Structure formats: C-alpha cells, structure tokens
C-alpha cells in the first residue's frame, strides 16, 4: 500500500536528486600521522589507533525538481559533509547519490584561482575546473567580465585583487551556466551592497527558472526565506524532513533543549566552584580536591556528548 502511494507521488513531480542510504565514515586518529617517520615509530610502538566516526549514517531523501531544500542542524550535525557528498567531492562510504542534471556548487568562490594568473587567465582555468568546455567559456567570456565589473583589472594578476574582487569574479564564472541543481553554503555576501543586490537578483532569477536548490545555513531566518522544504540533521542522521515550517519548529525545540542543557551545565559548574571555595576556606588540601574536580568534570562532559 505504502509503496503505491510513493509511486504516485513520484509520477507527479520529477526527482532531481536522490540520496540513498548514504553513510560517511571517517577514521579519526588522536594525532594526525602524516609522515613515514612517525608512522614507522608508531607502528613499532603499536600506537596506531583509529577511532571510527560516522559523520553521516543512513541518510535518505529525495528532492523534487524545482524544490528549494534547506539543510539545517546544529554544529557538527554533518551538513557540510552531506553537501560535499552531493557535490561529488567526497565519495560516501555507503550508499549513493543519484542526480539529474548539472550540479553547480557555489562554495567558497574563487578557491580555485591561481594567484599568479591574471583574471582573464583564471576565467579559463576556473571554468575548466568546473567542467566547462573551451568554446563555452570563449562564448561567455565577455558576459563574465561584464558581470564581475572588473574592467581593466581583468588583466592584473589575481594576487593583487581585493577579496571582494576575487569573490565577484568567482561568482560571475560559477553562475554563468544555467545549473539544474544549485548548492549554496550560507547566503552569499559578495562584494559591496550594490553587487550583492545584483548577485542576489541573479540567483533569484535562477529560482524563477525552476532550478533545484540545496541550501545550508545556521540561520533559520534565511532558510525560511529561501526554501520551501527542509531536512534536519542531528549527529549524521535525518531527524526531520518535509515542509520548511514543520522542520523549523523541530529545529527550534532542539535549539531550546540545547540551550537549557548548557544552562544547567553552567549552573552545575558554578555550584561546584562555590563548594570548592568553601572547602578551601575551611583549609583543606585544595590540590587533591582539584583532581577530584577534574574527574567529575570529565564524567560530566562525557555525559553531555552522549
């Protein structure tokens, strides 16, 4: 019965992106061993221990074409990892991501620029990195330069650019295509107020053309403004998805819970300190007490992370 209902739904709207059973495992070592010498020493001393850590586990969801999905979650929930998996940068340990159409990630614009290259040369290099063809860049070159408003600075090495200029150029190159799926990390604040308006207008026009959007942000405000759907992650698991308002409600309760827990913890800490001060005043051995205190603190934080 359930199966049939699902089928009906997919028929109504095309699926642009499907995340199937995605899990991402990291091996965390206490210290990073990145050279042969240390590796060898640790290997002999048998100190090579890794801790497994699942940044994502059993993540399943579908994005319909034209949907604008916000991905929300507290710090360390796995949002960025999920975006990287969807963008194809990280290969998931389990599961897979099926997408239809060109994905354009607007993440940290201009990260691929070569500093010694001029703006003009970087247009070709960055375009090639994004997988554009030579003909395409040649055709769009004028448009890119125009939109970036760099004028004659286009022939100056990028190392002499201001960060705003660099972001402007990056934005102009990345958005010259018409992507089917757009990945946005936080809201783009590119350049000065005027350029920001212009770039927002460009993204809005993409929205209007029915592009599918994945958007990550800490700000619920922004997610509500931009998205119609949302997915909430906690410790790598999807704990809520659906309409943006419903998920926002869950997010708010979670946030309130976390605040309360923090408050409680702080209160406990204060009480402990007071007790310690009292005892110290009574002339007891503070050092032994401090040790005891540490142990307690550790147990407490251990509880917290659970």
């Amino acid at each position, binding site marked *: 019965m359930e199966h049939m209902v699902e089928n009906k739904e997919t028929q109504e709207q095309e699926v642009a992106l499907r995340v199937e059973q995605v899990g991402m495992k*990291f*091996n965390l070592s206490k210290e990073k061993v*990145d*050279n*042969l*010498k240390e*590796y060898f020493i640790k290997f002999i001393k048998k100190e090579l221990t890794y801790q497994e850590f699942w940044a994502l586990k059993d993540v399943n969801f579908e994005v319909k074409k034209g949907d604008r999905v916000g991905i929300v979650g507290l710090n360390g929930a796995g949002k960025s990892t999920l975006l990287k998996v969807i*963008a*194809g*940068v*990280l*290969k998931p340990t389990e599961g897979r991501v099926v997408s239809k159409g060109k994905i354009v*990630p607007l*993440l*940290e614009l201009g*990260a*691929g620029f*070569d500093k*010694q*290259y001029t703006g003009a*040369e970087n247009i*070709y*290099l960055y375009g*090639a*990195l*994004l*997988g*554009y*063809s*030579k003909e395409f860049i040649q055709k769009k070159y004028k448009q890119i330069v125009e939109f970036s408003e760099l004028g004659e600075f286009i022939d100056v090495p990028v190392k002499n650019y201001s960060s705003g200029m660099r972001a402007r150029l990056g934005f102009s190159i990345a958005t010259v295509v018409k992507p089917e799926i757009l990945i946005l990390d936080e809201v783009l604040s590119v350049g000065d107020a005027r350029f920001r308006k212009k770039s927002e207008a460009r993204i809005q026009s993409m929205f209007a053309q029915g592009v599918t959007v994945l958007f990550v942000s800490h700000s619920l405000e922004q997610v509500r403004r931009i998205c119609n759907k949302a997915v909430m992650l906690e410790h790598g698991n999807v704990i809520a998805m659906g309409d943006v308002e419903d998920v926002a409600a869950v997010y708010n309760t979670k946030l309130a819970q976390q605040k309360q827990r923090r408050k409680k913890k702080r209160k406990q800490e204060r009480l402990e300190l007071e007790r310690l001060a009292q005892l110290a005043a009574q002339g007891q051995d503070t050092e032994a007490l401090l040790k005891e205190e540490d142990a307690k603190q550790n147990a407490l934080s251990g509880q917290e992370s659970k």
Partner: protein
Amino acid sequence: MKRYIGNFTKYKFLLSELVKKDIKLKYRRSKLGIVWTLIEPILTTLVLSLVFGILKGKGDAFPVYILTGRLLFSFYSGSTKVAAKSIRSNGGMIRKVYIPKYMYPLASVLSNFVIFMISMIVLVGAMIIFRVVPTAHTILGIIPLGVLFLFSLGTSMILATVEVFFRDLEYLWGVMLTLMMYCSCIFYEPKSLGLHADILKFNPMFSIIYNFRNAVFYHKHLDGFALLYSGMVSLVLLVIGIYVFYKKQDEFILNI
C-alpha cells in the same frame, strides 16, 4: 571503461589548461623567460665537461655525451618531483569541486615533457658544434623517449598517491634520485667505473639513456635487452601507479 573515456574527454580542456599554467608560470617571473630552459643545461654541461673532460681527457664530443644523459635525467627528476607534490599542492581545489584527480600528476608530467622537448634545442646545437652528424639511427631516439615518458608517469602516479599520506616522502625521493643519477652514467662512461654496461642496464634509467645514446650519439641500433627491460619496468610501474591511485583517490581529500 567507456565512462572513464567520456569523463576524460569532458575534462580534456582542464588538462590542457593545467599544462599551460605550469609552463606559463614557470617562466613568468624571470626576465629571460623560456631562455632559461636552454641556458641552464648549457651551463651545467659546460661545468661537467670541463671537470670530467680535464680529469679524464675525453674525446671531442664529450659534451654531447653528457647532454644526452643530463637532459633525460633532469626531465625524469623534475617531473616526478613536481608530480609527487601535485595532489597536495592542489588540495584547495580538490576539497571544493569534483575533478578527476589524476589530471594533476598527468599535467605535471606533460608540462615537464613539453619543457624537456624545448630544451632538446640545446642538444641539436651541441650536435652541430661538435659535428655529430645525424644518421638514420637518430630517429630511433624517439623510442627511448616514449619509454621515458611512461616511466615518469608511472613513478609519478605512485609518488603522488603516497605523498598524500606521508609528506616526508619528498625528501626520501630526493635521496633516491641522487642515487639513481650516479648509477645512470650521466657524466662518465660505464667502462670508467670498471663495470660492464650489462649490469647497469638493470637500472631502467640507465637503459633508457643508454638506448638514447645508441641512437643519437653512437648511431647504433637500440639495445634489445635494455629496451625490453626498461619498457617492461615502465609498464609495470604505470599499472601499479594507476591501480594504487584509483584505489586510494577517495581518501585523498581526508588527508590533504
């Protein structure tokens, strides 16, 4: 397989851009630009010929002998050194966008090969000066050069992979290269070591240089064993290189 080829054609433009970038940037900062590619081997050959020529009292065309070894070896050491670092030094991009990662070591080897080809002008010049007249055998020199390219690429793929996980490989490889250089008869002849050339042939770098000299300098046929051996070693290295690279490339991002 079809998927890989499709992906390669899609990113062909990226490869050419990366090669172009390497070459352009290498010479942008210096006033003499690409001329350095020519001056540098001339100067070192001059020094080596003076030192070893006076010491040993070699024949007239000794500089040509040195150049044939030195140019080939400096291509190998230059390309493997740059390629070994290529994944790490482009980490910023690899972390942001999906790109076929083998493009980086491949581009490093290719750009060095282009520069190597340009520096061959020096060899031609030296051959004219020292009257080493080209014969039908000279054209066979292309074969060891092809082997050398595969040899460099195979080594580079392995080094690029390992370097991601162990940064100090760079220094170890530097030492290895020095050892290899002294075993490749670049500025001395095998018989001056009191060794028969057959033993040295087990060093693939020597085999390649040996055959290149046979074609260009001695105007002889290529040595069958040296050609087969260096070719086999290069192919095996390339297969291992591609295998470990593909096996490990998804972990690169976690370590750079």
